[in-house]
């Protein structure tokens, strides 16, 4: 009998050292240590229906930076300390009954801009949808817009009386 040519595909295990950062962070996880918290901002995940449109919107219109886009269904963006994960809903996100998450809703990230009027004008000119235009609230003026998948994003500009915690000092 002719030998099976696919036998030639046999792949012995060749040791490969992963990235040193990965080696160190996995060891920390195995030891039950948390990742160092200081200096880290928050992470938020948004579900989007069109990843390309979402990345273009957040990067080109709102000034986020693309950090990773390892697949057609996931991207990691940064805006200062805020890390925004964009995911196209897939089986991995489904509930046990198969329900998939949808973009939309009312909870949102809140992004500070220095001049809200100018930002709203520029974004309107680029065709960005607004749920409401500028309103004045306590300590801020704010506007509510939507990303291309319909997720809300709130922009605000601090006014007199605006408050946030002072930056912490110490080891970062």
């Amino acid at each position: 009998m002719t030998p099976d040519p696919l036998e030639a595909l046999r792949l012995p295990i060749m040791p490969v050292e992963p990235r040193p950062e990965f080696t160190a962070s996995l060891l920390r996880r195995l030891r039950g240590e948390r990742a160092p918290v200081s200096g880290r901002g928050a992470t938020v995940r948004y579900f989007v229906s069109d990843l390309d449109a979402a990345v273009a919107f957040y990067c080109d219109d709102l000034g986020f930076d693309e950090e990773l886009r390892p697949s057609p269904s996931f991207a990691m963006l940064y805006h200062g300390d805020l890390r925004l994960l964009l995911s196209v809903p897939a089986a991995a996100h489904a509930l046990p009954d198969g329900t998939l998450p949808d973009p939309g809703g009312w909870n949102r990230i809140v992004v500070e801009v220095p001049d809200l009027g100018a930002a709203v004008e520029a974004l309107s000119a680029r065709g960005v949808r607004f749920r409401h235009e500028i309103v004045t609230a306590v300590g801020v003026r704010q506007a509510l817009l939507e990303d291309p998948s319909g997720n809300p994003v709130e922009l605000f500009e601090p006014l007199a009386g605006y408050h946030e915690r002072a930056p912490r000092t110490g080891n970062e």
Partner: protein
Amino acid sequence: MGIEQEGTGAETPLAALYHRALPQVYGYLLPRCGSAVLAEDLTAETFMAAVAAARRDCPPELTVAWLVGVARHKLVDHWRRTDLERRRLGGIVSGAEPADDPWEAQLDIAAAHAALSRLSAYQRAALTLRYLDGLPVAEVAQELGRSLHATETLLVRARAALRRVYEEGEGRDA
């Protein structure tokens, strides 16, 4: 609560094994995944599973071979999920192919590996376990959670699909 024994500060068997086992597990996964991001995810899952296993009443003996076996399960689980995802998205391709004879042409190993990465998740899983890992068909069936007969059929179809993709690749290069 991790790989150091609580209170003693002494390292557990997994900690002692970590630096030796990590390149083996990652080296097993990387060429089979074809993506460093995925290989890192599955490597982390493998070692986290070892931490969980070490806490059981009858912990297994932690060895490189045991970890590579877990990595293989994680890879198969990943392919299962991928397959499910494709089905949900409606991207099923019919796998019905006639049985084929062994190829007469000399196999270009690199091209065959490239062709493998373009198959459906289950076909890729079956061929990887059978040929890259060299498992007997019965063990492939066990890993995939399918009957021996179903696995034999899957392997025949997967080989036919691989052949088709491989030959398309050759045609394109010519």
